[in-house]
């Protein structure tokens, strides 16, 4: 679904209300995620901090959960896990994907065939089933969440970087470097890398939002971060059992998760427009 998600967010924005909204929301969420543990919000894991399943009040802004935990700090912790895990995973994937994509595009022939087929296989494997398999093999937790996100977003980077590299590889300055005797590695890192960076940065934001969807999806199915730690997905899972008498759990974590993904998408759109102005992009 990665390619699809990318297209879904296509548009031609200029800095406008929506972009500003995205930047501000993302800023707030990042602030909460990064500084959450030091904010005076309460302990996310403290059981019996209040009555069970207490509706939102001045004391507990987001209410309490079924073990009497204050839900607000849990949501803040959820933002932290969801953002952090996705960011780490996407950063790792970007490095691997860029290297593989450049290798495929520049070295061509066999390398290209192998990398392209590998990306196809990952792409054709039903994403959620792949995630469930990896999470179950590695055991639920942060490492498996990161691996699952990487596997799902890797083809995205490979494809984009490969196609950009193909476009650049035949140009004069690359040929010149080759003639001057630059090593393959040097050509790739010094001459090609700067040219694919723009595309990689654009992909980063898309991959980040996909990563967040995957992380929360895995946690929603009980294969993400381990309790009592919260991710936005595990809070949704927790809350969905109590939907009828304590809807604040699903509503607060659901709204925050959607806002988080949306803000990343909006910022991604803005970044793309800034980096790739007026460039006609292929549609698939």
């Amino acid at each position: 679904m990665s390619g699809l998600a990318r297209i879904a967010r296509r548009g031609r924005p200029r800095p406008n209300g929506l972009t500003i909204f995205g930047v501000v929301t993302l800023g707030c969420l990042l602030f909460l995620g990064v500084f959450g543990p030091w904010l005076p919000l309460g302990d996310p894991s403290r059981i019996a901090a209040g009555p069970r399943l207490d509706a939102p009040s001045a004391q507990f802004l987001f209410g309490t959960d079924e073990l009497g935990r204050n839900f607000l700090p849990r949501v803040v912790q959820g933002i932290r896990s969801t953002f952090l895990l996705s960011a780490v995973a996407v950063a790792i994937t970007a490095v691997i994907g860029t290297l593989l994509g450049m290798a495929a595009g520049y070295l061509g022939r066999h390398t290209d065939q192998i990398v392209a087929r590998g990306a196809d296989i990952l792409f054709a494997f039903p994403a959620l089933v792949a995630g469930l398999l990896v999470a179950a093999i590695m055991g639920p937790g942060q490492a498996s969440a990161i691996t699952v996100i990487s596997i799902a977003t890797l083809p995205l980077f490979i494809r984009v970087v490969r196609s950009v590299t193909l476009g650049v590889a035949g140009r004069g300055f690359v040929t010149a470097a080759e003639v001057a005797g630059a090593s393959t590695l040097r050509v790739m890192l010094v001459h090609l890398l700067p040219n694919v960076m723009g595309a990689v940065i654009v992909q980063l934001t898309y991959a980040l939002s996909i990563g967040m969807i995957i992380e929360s999806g895995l946690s929603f199915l009980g294969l993400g971060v381990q309790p009592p730690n919260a991710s936005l997905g595990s809070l949704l899972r927790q809350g969905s059992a109590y939907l009828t008498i304590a809807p604040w759990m699903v509503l607060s974590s659901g709204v925050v998760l959607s806002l988080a993904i949306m803000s990343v998408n909006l910022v991604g759109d803005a970044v793309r427009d800034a980096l790739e102005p007026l460039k006609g992009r292929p549609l698939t």
Partner: protein
Amino acid sequence: MRLATYLLPRVLAALVTLLGVSVLVFLSLRLLPGGYADILLGPFVTPEARAVIAQRYGLDQPLVVQYLRWVWAMLGGDFGVSMVTQRPVIDELLRRAPVTLQLALIALVLALAVGYPLGVLSGVRAASRRKRRDFGRVIGAMGASVPDFVLGSVLIFVFSVWSLWFRVGGYVPLGVDPVGNLRTMLLPGLTLSVFGVALILRTTRDAVLRVMTEPHITAAVARGASPGAIIRRHILRNAAIPVVTVVATYFGFLLGGAVIVEVLFSVPGVGLYIFNGLLNRDYAIVQAGVLLAAMVFITINMLADVLYALIDPRVGVSR
């Protein structure tokens, strides 16, 4: 013979991809901790019982032998037997495929019905009035940002408290009770369609915008043609091309990837079957299910490629 030269490498590549998927799913299942013996016997499993069950299902053979047997049997049309029910997996998959297909079609139709007209409208507005901050972007951003399990949970909440007309769970086959079927299938279909609305809306909007800035449209406007005629004659047709590709990819994704929504709404489709097979370590189900999903996904994408190449020969060979 251009089509053949265009298709042949793609078919070969698809076969290699399928082979890779089959190895991947086979190996990863064997790496899973815990097996069907644990699920069947619970705490009462003993090494002897484990051995008996392994032998019964050929799981005591070397992995290579197991894999080759599986592939060989599939070439003969035998996709294996569920360890839980002893029934052929392919029968169960074929029984469930129409359910998943129906769900995908509902989602696709809803997504097209809402996304395409809105996309055209939004694109035309954006191009003609130079207005960027329009509803198209807002809907597109929102639709692509609400994960299906969030929307699904909220819908379940709303419709299980006030049961209204829709139902949560309790699937009835279309042939048995069409109205009852729609009562249970519309909510999951709606949940799945929201992403599609955003996808199609934004693709259409982009395509329309691009077409609108091309010279022949500008010329048509200069000639004083009515906006309705311009939209009908030039825009809709040209904008349809990228939409076709995206719709195909989206459809492939729907057919193979609706696991969470099927689990959430207890829709007895292929996704739920694979999910339960995975929990039960019922290998044959997951193997056949994943392979089938990959096959459908690849085929639909290939068809989209071909279609795209046929409609617009410029793109064809180079891509």
